[in-house]
């Protein structure tokens, strides 16, 4: 298999060498995916999907490492990969034909783009970053095997039915589902520098979600997920059942919770919430390619060696880490999508910026990759996050952190502080054209009162802010770590990541009110009916 890929790679490379412009680099990345998923709602199976696919992404570089077809030109991202489907059997005729035609297509697109880039360069000013387009990386020869996917379909169908049935007598839940996913991915990479690599991993996931509508029309949702390195490491039934019940409790409480009001003041972000906060407002801004794209905000480009976080905080990206605080991390890999071996990268040490995340696209002062060139099938590699870990030396117990919050509320003379227990997702704008801002969408937010009243859940609050100002306001952290696993979407598609952090006390955070749906809840109540499980007739 690898041999066929390698032979066709070199046959094409040799022949294309005689063409003008000639390629100087060619790579084939073949991705084998096998996935099964089971979805259930209200005790009934909604679907079971399973499939195997094999696709190839081809990369051709024409020109030279200083200037090639991957150069960013204003408003135009390079896109060559086509995720072409490949035979599931290792049949050489079919494999070779597909590779040959796809190489030709990619070569033509690459050659055309290089000519456009050179034309563009004649009419545009040079950017600040004078580094080239492709850095050196040592070739790798390695064949890892990935264990077969074991997904007991009947077992998971039954479990999904059972778990999802919990919502059957909860009329305020308008939509709910339990999804179980098992996936296996094997990547085979060959390039003209001699790399011959096979590696991969598995994914296992349980997602429980429920949605509803408050009386005033606001749409609300709650979810819990479990991620694991393979199916066997997913939690036991009791833990999942507890999570199902928790999803319901959260949604039911949210549906009855009072609305948030615009607020500025002190807050605690839980470890999970802080992880997302760091992923959004910090992680995306240290991705290497943003430092040389003239359309980017380049918040940190010229701040290496300078203090950007309080000195008690350090941040690392570690794709070699598989577990933290007893939780499987989702952002691990052995090699990135350019065949560069994974390694931990210390990004911020004691508050000082040390490093960026790098693919094989070099930037000023950072000439080689640190193994963070990642992508989804069909996309082009850019620098992406892996496992983000925030570490603190100013750490206290959660109880003490709460005491500090209450002290801060009193000091600032605020009616209350906020506790962000859970956030669902966020986005950040790094482009120069937009505001350099971020928004994080909290799910579970509580008012914390200084006078000892119990915390009060509120709904409809969004955290807003600008990155540099927000970092300066981190005052203290907890001494435990929690993990947020998920998929991160950016230019190179969806990639699995994680973000782990202690809880953070922030002296000032700004909250805005979320946009609300104006539409009425259903006219009629939910149908009252017996829940009877049955199969296909």
């Amino acid at each position: 298999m690898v041999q066929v890929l390698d032979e066709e790679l070199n046959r094409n490379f040799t022949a294309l060498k005689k063409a003008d412009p000639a390629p100087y680099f060619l790579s084939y990345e073949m991705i084998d995916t096998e996935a099964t998923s089971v979805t259930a709602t209200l005790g009934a199976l909604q679907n079971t999907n399973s499939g195997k696919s094999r696709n190839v992404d081809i990369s051709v570089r024409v020109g030279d490492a200083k200037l090639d077809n991957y150069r960013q030109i204003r408003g135009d991202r390079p896109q060559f990969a086509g995720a072409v489907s490949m035979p599931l059997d290792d049949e050489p005729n079919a494999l070779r034909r597909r590779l040959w035609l796809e190489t030709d297509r990619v070569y033509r697109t690459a050659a055309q783009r290089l000519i456009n880039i050179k034309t563009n360069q004649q009419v545009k000013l040079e950017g600040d970053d004078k580094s080239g387009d492709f850095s050196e990386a040592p070739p790798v020869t390695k064949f890892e095997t990935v264990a077969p996917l074991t997904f007991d379909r009947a077992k998971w169908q039954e479990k999904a039915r059972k778990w999802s049935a919990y919502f059957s007598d909860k009329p305020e839940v308008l939509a709910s589902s339990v999804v179980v996913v098992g996936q296996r991915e094997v990547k085979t990479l060959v390039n003209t520098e001699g790399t011959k690599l096979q590696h991969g991993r598995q994914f296992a996931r349980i997602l429980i979600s429920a949605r509803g509508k408050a009386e005033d029309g606001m749409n609300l949702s709650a979810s819990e997920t479990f991620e694991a390195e393979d199916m066997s490491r997913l939690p036991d039934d009791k833990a999942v059942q507890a999570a199902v019940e928790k999803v319901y409790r959260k949604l039911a409480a949210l549906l009855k919770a009072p609305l948030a009001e615009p607020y500025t003041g002190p807050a605690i972000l839980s470890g999970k919430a802080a992880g997302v906060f760091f992923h959004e407002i910090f992680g995306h801004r240290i991705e290497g390619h943003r430092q040389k794209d003239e359309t980017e905000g380049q918040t940190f480009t010229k701040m290496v060696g300078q203090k950007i976080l309080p000195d008690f905080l350090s941040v690392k990206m570690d794709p070699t880490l598989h577990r933290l605080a007893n939780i499987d991390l989702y952002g691990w890999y052995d090699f990135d999508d350019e065949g560069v071996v994974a390694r931990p990268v210390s990004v911020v040490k004691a508050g000082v910026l040390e490093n960026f995340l790098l693919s094989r696209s070099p930037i000023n002062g950072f000439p080689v990759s640190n193994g963070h060139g990642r992508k989804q099938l069909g996309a082009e590699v850019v620098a992406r996050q892996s496992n983000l870990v925030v570490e603190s030396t100013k750490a206290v117990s959660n109880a003490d952190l709460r005491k500090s919050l209450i002290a801060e509320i009193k000091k600032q003379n605020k009616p209350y502080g906020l506790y962000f227990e859970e956030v669902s997702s966020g986005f950040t704008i790094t482009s120069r054209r937009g505001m350099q801002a971020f928004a994080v969408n909290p799910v579970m937010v509580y008012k914390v009162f200084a006078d000892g009243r119990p915390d009060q859940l509120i709904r409809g609050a969004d955290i807003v802010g600008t990155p540099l100002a927000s970092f300066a306001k981190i005052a203290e952290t907890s001494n435990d770590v929690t993990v947020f696993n998920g998929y991160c979407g950016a230019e190179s598609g969806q990639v699995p990541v994680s973000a782990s952090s202690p809880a953070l006390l922030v002296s000032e955070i700004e909250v805005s009110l979320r946009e609300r749906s104006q539409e009425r809840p259903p006219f009629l109540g939910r149908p009252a009916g017996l829940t009877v499980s049955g199969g296909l007739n």
Partner: protein
Amino acid sequence: MRRRDLVFLLPAAALAQSADPVLKAMQDEMARARQMSVVGGQPIFYIECTLDEAVAFRATASLGAMFSANASSYRVPRVSMRIGEPKFDNTNYMFSEVFMGTRFDPEQFPIDNNPAAMRQVYWLALDRAYKTALEAIGRKRAALRNITQAEELADFTTAAPVKMVLPVPNWAANEDAWKGRITRLSKIFAAYPEVYTSSVDYETSRDIYYFANNEGTELRYTELLAYVRVRANGQAPDGMRLRDHVTFVSNDVTKLPGEAEMEKTVRESADNLRALLKAPQGESYSGPVLFEATAAAQMFSDLIGSQAAVFRKPVMEPGRNVNLPISDLEGRLGSRVLPSSFTVVDDPTQKEYRGRTLLGHYPVDLEGVTPSPVVLVEKGTLKNYLATRVPTRDAKTSNGHARLPGSFGGYSAFASNLFVKSDETTPASEMKTKLIDMVKQRNKPYGMLVRKLDFPSTAGFDELRAMLGGVSGRVAALPLLVYRVYPDGREELVRGMRFRGLNARALKDIVAAGSDEAVFDYIGNAAPFSIVGGGNYVFGCTTVAPSVLFEDLELERPQIELPKLPVVPPPPLTA
């Protein structure tokens, strides 16, 4: 397929209680949904719930290798609601189906027959439908304050309720046998290095259609479909991309041709492509053109089958006109469209023709209307259109041809079994002689013979865009195999041609029909040329037609840029 047709016509509509759990869930929620009119203030006069339940197996092979093999099963629900009154309701308005709120009903329906879970879907879907309808009828009324309709037509017509709950036939996909067969068929192309890409697809499916409305109609019937589709592409020395394809289709998988016959046909197709790649480019031509029976059946499917329904134009917002497709046959009722010897009938009630199962048969249409045969053309004159329950100027009541979900709250009509016949036929063997006579008479160097059209088309998206672009009027399907016929009878294959002005208006120029007949089965959809993969809703069709000779037809060589040949020569093929 075992199927007993049990049709009861009900005198009055009482909300029934079906024994089928899916139909019962529909009926339970429809009964409840009526209460919404109390809260919403607008009377609901029509509700329907449907469910498409599909199980399918699909596989693709190329050059002796399996590319994909997937089994799938899913259920897709749909609901529809009409408020106001049949004379004027929420439909037939450009924003009839626009819903701005959050959707809570899932797009996929439970696979288990769990009553609570099934009713939940219809409850939320009908809630959404009612809110959509309320908004639509208000906006439609407002829009009509500022525009005057060319003519006022009712929005919906009556139809007799039908109860037809048929047993569901067993279905099994013999996955391994078919995987083996298509892998072997795909390997044939290993002997054709000039074929750049090739594939053999196999699909077999069972679709159960559930339908219930508040008029008492209750349906459960099954459609089976199986096909093998073979596609091959290559590039001529000047860069022109060429292709050929073959489809074997049946509503009974056991009636698909045997492997030996398929193998023969695939080889023919590979030989066709090989010949095309070496063939000269055609020159612009105007003169007599002969369509062999299969090509003629494809042409009639395209020019009449897909055009025989008139589309009801929705009420537009003032100043926001949207261009909607207009049938070539629109406004031509009572006019001559074919020579006076021709009759065209669309007959979904016919199951067999000369011992062959017809693909276009169905017991009842998607709206629950029992179909009737429709004489579209009589003695060359257009007499009728295919119709649904949405009236149009020239088709005020349904004739049971709602074959796919449509836009603006209604269904779309489409042909089923289309029979094109002529009273005056020329022996098939003399059709070519007739062509040659005309060529000689008019002193032309050659005439043209069309053996195969690209219908249903396998064009890619880019090719389709190129085909439809830069041409005024409706474009006809491309000829895949077209030959020059010289006065001495010699045939010469040419490539790169397309028709000019071949539309329903050109059919009057037919001067002869052969005594032969082709029975052409195909899978139709809403896209132009029923392009493969062009619609998520498909239906079986059959067209029966004789070979036909046109007195005058134009073929042209479009001026398009040709892609370059691959830089690297193709990899060698091993046996």
